[in-house]
């Protein structure tokens, strides 16, 4: 029952976001509201087992959901800007020192690994190449391996980010 309600609310939210501005009641016209509720019920009936597959309702907590926009607009945007200026410098000058290194992450849930891998791909001159499924370590391609890192067997995740501690934020949101 709870997965059904959550899927229904998510589908209704996206439908209302896509049809805002059609006039009438507030932003929406009455026919759009009726169609949205009917289509969301249909979607929830079909897809309820796909969205909430793990039976882990930790992310239904509204505080964690509200932290995601704060995380994206705050420390993540700072790191993305710095990483883009860094890669722009490397495109212009051509000074690269690439290599694949192993990063140890203490995250356990799938959502935490997902957020960390995507943050790594978009931020500090690195791309996630593969994930060790058992130990949840990440193999990342770094465009500029710092001196001395090529001899270390693995590095900690927070050493990658220089301006904000993104792994601590992800741990706060997803674990």
């Amino acid at each position: 029952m709870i997965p059904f309600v959550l899927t229904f609310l998510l589908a209704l939210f996206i439908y209302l976001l896509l049809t805002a501005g059609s006039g009438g009641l507030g932003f929406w016209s009455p026919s759009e509201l009726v169609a949205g509720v009917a289509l969301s019920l249909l979607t929830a009936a079909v897809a309820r087992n796909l969205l909430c597959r793990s039976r882990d309702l930790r992310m239904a907590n509204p505080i964690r959901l509200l932290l995601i926009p704060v995380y994206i607009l705050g420390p993540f945007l700072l790191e993305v800007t710095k990483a883009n200026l860094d890669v722009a410098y490397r495109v212009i000058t051509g000074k690269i020192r690439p290599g694949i290194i192993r990063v140890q992450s203490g995250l356990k849930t799938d959502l935490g690994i997902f957020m960390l891998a995507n943050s790594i791909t978009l931020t500090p001159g690195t791309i996630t190449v593969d994930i060790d499924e058992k130990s949840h370590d990440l193999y990342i391609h770094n465009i500029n391996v710092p001196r001395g890192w090529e001899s270390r067997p693995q590095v900690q995740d927070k050493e990658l980010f220089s301006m904000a501690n993104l792994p601590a934020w992800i741990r706060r949101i997803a674990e």
Partner: protein
Amino acid sequence: MIADILVLACLSVGLFFNTLGIVGLLRFPDVYTRMHATTKMTTFGSVFTALSVIIYGAAQFLGTGDGQYITLSLHTLIAAIALAFTNAVGSHAIARGAHKAGIKPVPAVVDRLEEYTP
């Protein structure tokens, strides 16, 4: 007036980063470094061009009160979020597939993934 300047600034920043991304795609030596240029800079540039459209729509809505401009801003916001997520996941998938297909990172100081056997 301020909105016009903001729109032009965001559009210029977005086009600048898009151009640098394409230059990196043409210039870098192997597939992984090319992916750095395209993934980060093209996503950042496209999100900034979308941001200029969002600012334009919000300014027009505040100026004229027409409901279709708020629709424009919201749809562009959804497109930008979809673009950022899909680019990150898609480039990770291509990198993993390329490494499984046996493409080595050609100038590389270290390759830890080669030593790893699942």
